[in-house]
């Protein structure tokens, strides 16, 4: 007897979020194993997961061909399970042709764009609109969930243009605000009114269907058969629910009456029966219940797995034609994802031009502007070579032109932007103005960055000012239309945190237990909850509950399960023809954004082009600084023509004086600067790239530094004799023989380990998906072994591999470092030459960078900039420049006040002319009236001590504004008279300076009056605690105690040491604490805002001083002294304090005592 044949056409992958319990690729492998002839993947209202399965099949095919020389006789068909919001039973739809795929995508887009992110509202009439070329399997019942398919407000729905050229949406697609009539003619007549949902767009929620409704089914089948007579099937599954045979017979009768064929499915949710518990856990997560509460809401048995053809034939022995039908169905489908042909949009190329010719024309224009007397021969040669390369790939000119189009738009709006990436470091990009890096000057070869692999997509990321990127994004939508442009998706996968929390909840572990487990996982990138981690938290894997948690968490993480879709940071896919006929479009969580269902890897696999529109805070800062300098000092700068290679700028960097400077302001970078001593732009490129996990994990940092300082000879690792000993010279030449960049490490691996092109290709693939799929380990032996075979030392080989592993999660290639280095230089230049403008611009671009406003202002003042306090009479919303003593001074703006609104600031700025004279109270009242300020604005201003120019300090002003009327009575207003009578002097005590400082921190997070530590100095001095300045002068090896405000706590890399930065009135102290000491002092380290550290002073060779911490004390309580009168608070031992019941207690609303509102903002740190 021949083996029966069967194709499962109702397989869900885990992109049916929290329904499907297997990866699509596992489904595929299982189907291959069981000897199916094909597989149909149909997820709930989505095709987000199909590309991965398709790619997995493609890879398996290649492997199979390579191993056996036989092609794999297997056909994957991709579709979607349509779950309707109007009570229509589920329908599985497979496109028969490319046109059908387009219809399916349009259908899903229509549903998606009616709903909020992640949801889809489908109605039967949508399918009747878009049914063409779709093969439809109608299932007996709907599986719609109660909260599924809820419409968003009609006016917020995005409407895509219909077919045809006109861009105006036709009435067909306009969703009427109220009525329930969606189609006037055509198929509408076929749909029973009961199927349409209730009247009123927003609340047509149909109750959760519990069992098949024969009437609905009849109507659905009839409606579909009328439009698609030969493309409708009735799907039947044998679920082992007792009455299977009877139900099947009924369905068969049904199918006969409706004149549609019966088709066997098993409606698989997972690959193998063992996956049932996981599916139950996912169901519990979905329903927000625990597994114990699951009961009947779970499947009764483990039958929803892929079954062998023989088993399916046995189950359907009474209706063998239902099995045969699956094959007929499967054979009919001619569509494969391979058929999605990508076409570049025509917009960037003007009519009548060929793209290459237009590109050449634009480049020539750029060159003519740059070199009016004709370009140098070197440049000409470079351009020739680049054009030669570009002409080999017809897509590349389009790509460059598309990027150029965006950049041109940004320029026209005065938005700073800059390209980076492999293709960006070309002469073409330079002359198009995409990047300011002149490849001729830095000796960059385009071909060096372009991969030999012709399939790899070109890579140009363009950074825009972060505050104005939205303008560029909306430009993209406007220019190409929402039906032709979409942001790429990012698939959010389960991480250990989310997995532990959600699975723990489903297994009814308390939130406390899961928090405890999660809190020991430092990074959220750890791929597994190791056994030790459980031990650390005091839980044992012998405990069945914990073992169960571990089992399911491991299942979710081994190849991370997708959790939901999110939008990519800024990657756009632009198409010539309708994008919504290639992939469904969704609403993003962010207003006005739409994105597609596929992520970056899917796009790459299908060879769609992606343009990255990214946001960069430093560009905003630089633009604002340029504007300030132009307006105030009359000097006009652009990034492109800043004076290059200024010695004083590099001198500043060499001293590690880099607060606010792009990319090199972190503690680790600051420590590296004096050691690396950058003197030219390429040094900055290395500086940016070296303090990264890759080079650190590969142990490449110290060898490079030693060679750079001339302490070690520059040698190139070389293979054993038969091979060319200089084979690595090309790759490692610029970095003194030490691989530092991602491209270097990759090329080195491929060259030194002599990978075949196919291997190299796979290796690249593994790298790209490093975090998602654990395929890297198999390359470790291949690479290390390969390198050793050719005579490299094992140690070097392992280091190279470790480095690649390090890059895996935080890749940083040279092509990106180059563009960043330009910004490092630009920001350093501004900091050195225009410190006031830089400070103001940096503050105006917050939040960005590493440092809080207090440090930015402190740093500017250290560099001699006068900084003036916020004042109602002088400040603007933004921080600005004012004429100062010789150099410009910075006037802090209202934006520094927590909670202040820009509208109030604008009103104040507008009302300033109207302010009269008079006593302070009168002037405040006049301001309040002229600017129509609400009480809250006045109180915030007073609390920020901004009425000094009027003659009131904080205390007086606060007392006064508490009674300042804010909505003038008409009579008083008409008479322009004061509403308030004179009041007796309240005899308030004077506010001590320390209290002012504390209040400054509370309102603006910084104080220009004094550093909090300066008030505590006498206390600490008496105890023998040194100031930071004294620590800097102390000898190497001396014991010292130092105290300061905690700025930063960091636990870099593998977490062997904790870095803490303390600040006092004289400067900062860097404290280093070993991890074991940290465990001992965990509480003070985690809790302190004011910390005292005892330790030993260490000087490094470059003159950096550290305190090796040995003992940590939490002195946060001392800060209370600032805001309390010293006399009334005699020195109590702190232990005493806990006895006081006025300790913050829960009866105070919001749980916090107003006096104990923290004086200092939380530091940036790791917990």
């Amino acid at each position, binding site marked *: 007897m021949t083996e029966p044949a069967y194709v499962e056409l109702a397989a869900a992958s885990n992109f049916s979020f929290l329904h499907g319990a297997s990866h699509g690729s596992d489904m595929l492998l299982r189907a291959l194993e069981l000897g199916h002839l094909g597989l149909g993947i149909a997820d709930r209202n989505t095709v987000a997961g199909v590309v991965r399965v398709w790619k997995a099949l493609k890879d398996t095919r290649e492997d199979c061909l390579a191993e056996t020389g036989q092609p794999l006789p297997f056909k994957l068909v991709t579709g979607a399970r349509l779950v309707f919001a109007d009570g229509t039973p589920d329908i599985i739809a497979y496109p028969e042709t490319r046109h059908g795929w387009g219809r399916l995508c349009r259908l899903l887009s229509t549903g998606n764009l009616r709903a909020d992110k992640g949801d889809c509202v489908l109605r039967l009439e949508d399918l009747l609109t878009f049914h063409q070329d779709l093969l439809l399997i109608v299932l007996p019942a709907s599986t719609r969930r109660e909260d599924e398919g809820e419409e968003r407000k009609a006016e917020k729905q995005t409407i895509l243009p219909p077919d045809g050229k006109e861009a105006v949406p036709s009435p067909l697609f306009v969703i009427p605000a109220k009525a329930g009539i969606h189609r006037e003619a055509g198929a509408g007549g076929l749909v029973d009114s009961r199927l349409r949902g209730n009247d009123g767009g927003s609340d047509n929620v149909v109750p959760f269907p519990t*069992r098949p409704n024969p009437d609905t089914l009849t109507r659905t089948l009839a409606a579909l058969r009328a439009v698609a007579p030969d493309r409708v099937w009735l799907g039947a599954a044998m679920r082992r*629910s*007792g*009455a299977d*045979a009877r139900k099947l017979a009924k369905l068969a009768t049904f199918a006969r009456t409706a004149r549609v064929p019966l088709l066997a499915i098993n409606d698989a949710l997972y690959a193998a029966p063992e996956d*049932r*518990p996981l599916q*139950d856990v996912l169901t519990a997560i979905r329903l927000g219940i625990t*597994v*114990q509460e*699951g*009961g*009947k*809401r779970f499947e*009764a*048995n*483990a*039958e929803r797995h892929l079954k062998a053809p023989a088993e399916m034939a046995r189950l359907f022995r009474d209706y063998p034609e239902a099995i045969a039908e699956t094959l007929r169905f499967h054979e009919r489908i001619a569509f494969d994802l391979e058929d999605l042909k990508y076409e570049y949009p025509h917009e960037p190329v003007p009519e009548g031009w060929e793209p290459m010719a237009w590109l050449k024309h634009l480049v020539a224009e750029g060159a003519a502007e740059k070199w009016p007397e004709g370009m140098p021969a070197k440049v000409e040669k470079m351009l020739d070579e680049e054009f030669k390369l570009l002409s080999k790939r017809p897509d590349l000119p389009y790509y460059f032109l598309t990027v150029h189009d965006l950049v041109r738009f940004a320029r026209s709006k005065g938005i700073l932007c800059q390209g980076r990436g492999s293709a960006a470091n070309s002469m073409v990009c330079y002359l198009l103005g995409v990047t300011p890096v002149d490849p001729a000057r830095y000796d960059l070869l385009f071909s060096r960055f372009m991969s030999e692999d012709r399939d790899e997509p070109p890579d140009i990321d363009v950074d825009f000012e972060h505050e104005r990127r939205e303008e560029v994004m909306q430009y993209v939508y406007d220019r190409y239309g929402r039906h032709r442009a979409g942001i790429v998706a990012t698939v959010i996968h389960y991480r250990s945190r989310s997995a532990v929390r959600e699975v723990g909840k489903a297994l009814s572990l308390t*939130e*406390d237990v899961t*928090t*405890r487990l999660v*809190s020991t996982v430092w990074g959220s990138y750890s791929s597994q909850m190791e056994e030790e981690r459980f031990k650390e*938290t005091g839980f044992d894997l012998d405990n*069945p509950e914990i073992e*169960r948690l571990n*089992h399911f968490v491991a299942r979710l993480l081994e190849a991370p399960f997708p959790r939901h879709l999110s939008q990519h940071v800024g990657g756009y896919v632009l198409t010539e023809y309708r994008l919504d006929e290639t992939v469904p479009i969704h609403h993003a969580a962010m207003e006005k954004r739409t994105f597609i269902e596929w992520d970056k890897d899917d796009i790459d696999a299908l060879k769609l082009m992606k343009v990255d529109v990214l946001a960069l805070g430093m560009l905003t800062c630089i633009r604002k600084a340029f504007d300030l300098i132009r307006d105030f000092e009359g000097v006009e700068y652009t990034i492109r023509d800043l004076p290059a290679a200024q010695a004083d700028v590099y001198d500043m960097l060499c001293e590690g004086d880099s607060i606010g400077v792009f990319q090199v302001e972190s503690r680790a970078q600051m420590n590296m600067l004096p050691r690396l001593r950058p003197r030219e732009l390429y040094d900055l490129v290395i500086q940016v790239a070296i303090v990264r996990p890759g080079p650190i994990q590969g142990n490449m940092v110290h060898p490079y530094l030693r060679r750079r300082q001339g302490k070690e000879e520059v040698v190139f690792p070389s293979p054993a004799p038969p091979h060319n000993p200089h084979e690595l010279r090309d790759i490692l030449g610029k970095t003194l023989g030490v691989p530092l960049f991602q491209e270097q490490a990759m090329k080195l691996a491929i060259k030194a380990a002599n990978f075949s092109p196919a291997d190299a290709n796979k290796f690249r693939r593994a790298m790209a998906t490093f975090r998602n799929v654990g395929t890297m380990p198999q390359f470790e032996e291949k690479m290390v072994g390969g390198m050793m075979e050719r005579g490299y030392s094992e140690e070097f080989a392992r280091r190279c591999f470790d480095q690649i592993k390090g890059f895996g999660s935080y890749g940083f290639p040279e092509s990106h470092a180059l563009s960043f280095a330009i910004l490092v230089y630009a920001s350093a230049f501004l900091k050195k030459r225009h410190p006031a403008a830089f400070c103001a611009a940096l503050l105006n671009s917050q939040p960005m960078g590493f440092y809080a406003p207090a440090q930015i202002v402190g740093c500017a003042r250290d560099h001699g900039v006068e900084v003036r306090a916020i004042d109602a009479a002088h400040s603007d919303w933004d921080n600005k420049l004012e004429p100062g003593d010789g150099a410009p001074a910075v006037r802090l703006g209202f934006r520094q006040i927590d909670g202040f609104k820009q509208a109030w600031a604008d009103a104040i700025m507008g009302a300033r002319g109207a302010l009269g004279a008079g006593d302070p109270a009168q002037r405040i009242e006049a301001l309040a009236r002229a600017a129509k300020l609400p009480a809250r604005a006045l109180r915030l201003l007073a*609390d920020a001590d901004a009425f000094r120019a009027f003659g009131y300090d*904080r*205390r007086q002003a*606060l*007392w006064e504004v*508490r*009674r300042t009327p804010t909505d003038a009575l008409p009579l008083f207003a008409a008479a322009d008279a004061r509403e308030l009578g004179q009041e*007796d002097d*309240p005899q*308030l*005590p004077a506010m001590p300076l320390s209290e002012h400082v504390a209040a400054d921190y509370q309102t603006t997070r910084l104080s220009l009056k004094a550093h909090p530590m300066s008030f505590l100095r006498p206390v600490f001095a008496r105890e023998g605690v040194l100031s930071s300045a004294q620590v800097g002068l102390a000898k190497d090896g001396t014991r010292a105690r130092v105290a300061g405000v905690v700025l930063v706590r960091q636990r870099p890399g593998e977490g062997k040491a904790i870095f803490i930065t303390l600040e006092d009135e004289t400067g900062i102290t860097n404290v280093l604490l070993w991890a074991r000491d940290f465990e001992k002092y*965990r*509480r003070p380290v*985690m*809790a302190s805002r004011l910390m005292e550290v005892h330790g030993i002073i260490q000087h490094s060779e470059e003159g950096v001083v550290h305190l090796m911490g040995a003992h940590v004390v*939490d002195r946060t309580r001392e800060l209370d002294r600032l805001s*309390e*009168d010293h006399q*009334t608070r005699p020195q109590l031992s702190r232990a005493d304090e*806990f006895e006081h*019941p*006025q*300790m*913050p*207690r*829960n*009866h*105070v609303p919001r*749980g916090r*005592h*107003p*006096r104990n509102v923290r004086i200092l903002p939380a530091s940036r740190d790791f*917990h």
Partner: protein
Amino acid sequence: MLAENIWRLGNPKTSSICEEGLPVVFVEKLNNAMRLTALSRAAIALGLTPDLTLADARARVPELVALDRDHGDEARLLARIVAGCVRYTPMAAAEPPDGAILDITGCAHGFGGEEGLKADLARRLEASGITAFCALGDTPEQARALTRFGHKSKNLLDLPVEAIEADPAVTLALRRAGLKRIGDLASRPRKMLAARFGDLAIRLGRVLGEQDRHISPERPLSPVFALRRFAEPIARIEDALACLEDLGRDAAQTLLERHQGGRRFIARFFRSDGAIVGVEIGTGRPTRDPALLIRLFRERVDALSDPIDPGFGFDMIRLDVGQCEALTARQDDHLAPSRHEEDLAELVDRLSVRLGARRVHRAQPENSHIPECAASPCAPSRLPVWESAPEGEPPMRPLRLFDPPQPVGAVMSEVPDGPPMRFTWRGKTYGVTRWEGPERIAAEWWRRRDRGGRPRDYYRVEDEAGHRFWLFRHGLHEAGGTPPDWYVHGLFA
């Protein structure tokens, strides 16, 4: 603070750990984060504070014991404390979440003066394991301020401005103004404060004892009862019951006034020789229908295994309503359709009275696929909703199940999952003529360590004689495994 007390009182085993200083915190979900809202002394001593997120607290003190805060429990404990305070004064009221206020005006003489009363209260609270702070004041607010903020100084004017318990923004503003003690406020014109801080002046007046507000004490409603004494003892049970009916009317009147109905009624017959006979009835829903009551009492008295012996007669009969529930007045309408539910409830009441309340059940559906777990008995007063079978479909499961399922032998069935064609049960062999199935029900993996368990395949079968059985195969046929067992789990009518 109450939270800690509850934990210590409610869990004596762990309370010893607490004494040794284990940091215990109580957490609540606020603004999407688990935050500490109450702390044990040990936790406070470690520097933890309310409002800290649990994750932050854990980062500092990994060995922290975190418990979910239960406000309901706290309120109940507070209510018990307040109820206990009635020994001092009828004017005792709870001040949620964690305070109580006692008006002891004129109540202190029995305890040796006000200080004596306070000391007695403190002693009693401490003896019951409750941490409490007590203070005396002229007004509730003053007492409250002194209790919460008066640990350093008993002088009202020295208390911090927080003691006024104004809005935190107002308190902050006062501190910013340099007015940090109540004395600083008291010495300034009230008009000045009122112009700026609204009700602060009133609050200040209350704390200073210038203005009083009355507390609303907790007063439990008095119990409902009715009684009748007889000059001459009555000896006939029938007479006694007739009297009881009168009492029932009296009680019903009281209940009607309160908009309540009784769920539990106790009749006590006081015999002239001093013996008391008590008879109790309960109803499924609140009632105040005297006719119904007497009917139920008669049922109960008739059903007594040990009939009531009137002896020399009863000289008093008393009817107590043991449990009251809200019941609004209703006008009966003789045209209204009969209330089926009420009829059923009445039947249930009569059965319960006759057979005992614990012997009348209703079946309610449970959330499980496993047949023996799919239903459970519940009180007859509840109205569980069963899913009705689709029209025209036979019942898939029998009404009653064998507990435990009974093994059947000599089963002939097709491998792997065919129906039983012949089986032997209780020594008799049945040949199956018609069957349906299987209904496969997998084990509840979460109850098992190995996440496994054998599934059951249920069949509905009929033999030649028309008997219908519900059989199941326990386990599946697996290569090399033990053959599965068969059981009969129920019979279809």
